C-alpha cells in the first residue's frame, strides 16, 4: 500500500517514485501546487475508494499526512 501511495504521488507530479519519501510535500516537490494537490487527493480518493473531508484535504502537508488520513479511513497502508 505504501508503494501505491508513492506511485500515485509520482504519477500526479510527474517525478520518479524513488525520489519520494514521507517528508515529500509542496516544499520539496516543485509541481505540488494547490491545484495539483487537489488532483492528487482526487486520484487517491478514487484509487482507495474513500472520500476525504474538507479539513482533511486542507491539512495535508506531505506524504506522511496522506498516509495518516488513509489510516483514519481504515485503509491499511502497511500491507
Amino acid at each position: 500500500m505504501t508503494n501505491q501511495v508513492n506511485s500515485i504521488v509520482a504519477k500526479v507530479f510527474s517525478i520518479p517514485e524513488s525520489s519520494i519519501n514521507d517528508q515529500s510535500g509542496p516544499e520539496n516537490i516543485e509541481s505540488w501546487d494547490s491545484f495539483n494537490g487537489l488532483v492528487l487527493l482526487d486520484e487517491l480518493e478514487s484509487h482507495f475508494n474513500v472520500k476525504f473531508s474538507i479539513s482533511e484535504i486542507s491539512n495535508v502537508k506531505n506524504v506522511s499526512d496522506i498516509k495518516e488520513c488513509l489510516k483514519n479511513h481504515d485503509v491499511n497502508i502497511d500491507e
Partner: protein
Amino acid sequence: MEQKISDYISASKNIKISDNSKNVKIAILSSFTINGLDECLKVKSAELNIRYSSFIAGYDQYNQEILDSNSSLYKFNPDITFLIIDIRKILGNFFHFAYSFSEQNRKDAINEKINQIKNLITTFQNNSEKKLVISIVNPGTSSPIGILENKSKFGFNDMINKFTSELINFSKEQNSLFFHDFDLFIRKYGERNVFDYRQFFIGDIQIAFDFLPYFANELMSYIKPTLGINRKCIVLDLDNTLWGGVVGEDGFDGIELGQTANGKAFVEFQKQLLSLWQQGIILAINSKNNFDEAIKVIKEHPEMILREKHFASFQINWDDKAENLNRISEEVNIGLNSIVFFDDDKINQERISNEFPEVLTIPLPNDPSQYVSILNNLNDFNVLQKTDEDFKRGQMYAEQRERKKLKKSVSNLDDFLKQLDIKIKIKKANQFLIPRISQLTLKTNQFNLTTKRYQENEIQKLSSDSKFDVYCAQVHDKFGDNGITGVYIVNKTEHSWIIDTFLLSCRIMGRGIEDALLSQILIDAKNAGVQQVEGEFIPTQKNEPAKNFLSEHGFKKENKYWIYTLNNEIRSPKHLKVEVE
C-alpha cells in the same frame, strides 16, 4: 468512460504530433477555477493530430482581458475563445436572496446584466473577428420558495432563463458568436456529479475534476468543425444493425423491426439516422447478404424508415467488409476520414479499425437499445454553419448514384457528358455565398491548387478588396442541383492575374467544369487587358488530382509559378453552358 484528470495532465506533457498537423489557437476565459481543462483539450486535440496552443486567462480576469484592447488575449489572437462564466458571480446577491428584492428590482438587475454581457461581447468583436463561444455555468442553483418557484412573477428561475435566452438570441444574430448549452451538459451527466461542493469550497472549482474531460468533449465540438474536421458519411451494416435478426436465415417476415421491444429500438435508430440524412449526412450500406433479399427489405418492409433513395451506395455482397468500405469511399468520393462505421459484429469492427484507423469505427454493443444514445453522443457531425448544400447533401449523393448508372450505360465519356446537360452559373461572392465559399476552402482537399484555408471573415475581406475577384460556381445537371461546388479567387495586379485559389468539390470533378472555370478566368483577364495569368500548384498529401491541371491547360512553368500568356487562343469546353451572374 473518461480517464481521470491526472491522466490527461500527465499525457499532456508527452505529446507527439506529426508535421502535417492542423493548428489551432484556443483561449479560455473563466470566472472560476478551471485548471485541467487546458490539458484535456490539448490531449484530445493531439488525438486528432491537431497542434493545440492556448492562452489561459487568470482567475476571473475575463472582463479585463476583453475590455483592454492591448490585452494578452488579443495579442494571442485565438481562433476560438471560450468564455465560461458562472451564474453565481453574474447574479451576485440575487443568487441567494432573489426574493429579498422586488419583482421590478429583479427585472432591472437582469436587464443590466444582459446589457453588460452584450457590451462585453461587442467589445470582443470590435477587437477580434474570430469565434467566441459562451457557456453559462449554473449548477448548484436552488430556490428558497420550493414548489412555488414557478408561480412567482419573474422569479429566480425566470431571471436565469431570461439571461440565457437573451444570450441565445444574441448569438443567433451573429455568425461568430456561439452559445454553449451548459444546461444540456448538466442534464446529460447530472448536477450532483458535475458540481462537487467540496471542490467548490476549496478552490472555486465549479466543474468537478471527473467531469472536466466530458466538458472538454463539448468544447471539442467547436474546435473540430473550425478546422474542417467532421464526419460526413455513415456506413451501416444491415442484419442486427438496421434490423434485428438475419434476413438470409429468418426471412423477410422473420426479422425484428417495429412491434417488439428490440424491433422498436431498430426503428428509433433508423429515425435518428434519417434525421441526420435530412441534415446532409450521407448514408451507405456495407453488408454481407444476398443482394436481392436485402434490397427487398429496404424497398418493401412496412416498418423500414430508411429506403433506397436515402443511400448513396449499396455494397451488399459476400466480399470482404474492408474492400466494400473502400468501394463506398470511391463511389461516394469521400475520404475514409469522413466515414463512421456502424456494425454490430465485433470481428467486422476489428477488421475495419485495423485496416482503416482513420475511419471512426463505433464499438457497437450487442444490445440494440443502446444504438440511439451512442449515435446521439457522437460530436463528429458538427459544422459551424449549415449551407443549403449541406442540407441537400444526402439527396445529392443519391442522385450521384443515378448519374453513375448512366455513366455505366454510356460507354463514351463525351456522350456521357453531353447527356448530363450541365449548366454552370458563375457567381460573384456576396453575403449569402460567403459562408459556403469559406466552407469549400476549408474542406476541399483533392481538387485544390493551393489549399489556402479561409475563414468567413477572410473571404469577406477579399471580396470587398478591388484587387481580388472572388467567384463561385453553381452546377446543375439533368439529375439535379449540385449546389455551389467550385471556387476561384484571383489576385489582380497590373500586368498579371494570379490565381490565389482554385478548387472544385470532388463530386463534380472530371466533367469539364474545371476547364470551364479556368477559361472564364482567362477570358476575364484578357478582357481586362493584362498579359498573363499566373497559377501555382502547392502539393499536399491529397491534391494529386489537381497536379497536372495547369500544365494540361497550356500553362508553362517558370520557377515556382505556372504562366499562361494571354495571346494564346482560349479553349472552352463545348458540352456545357456557362452563365456569369
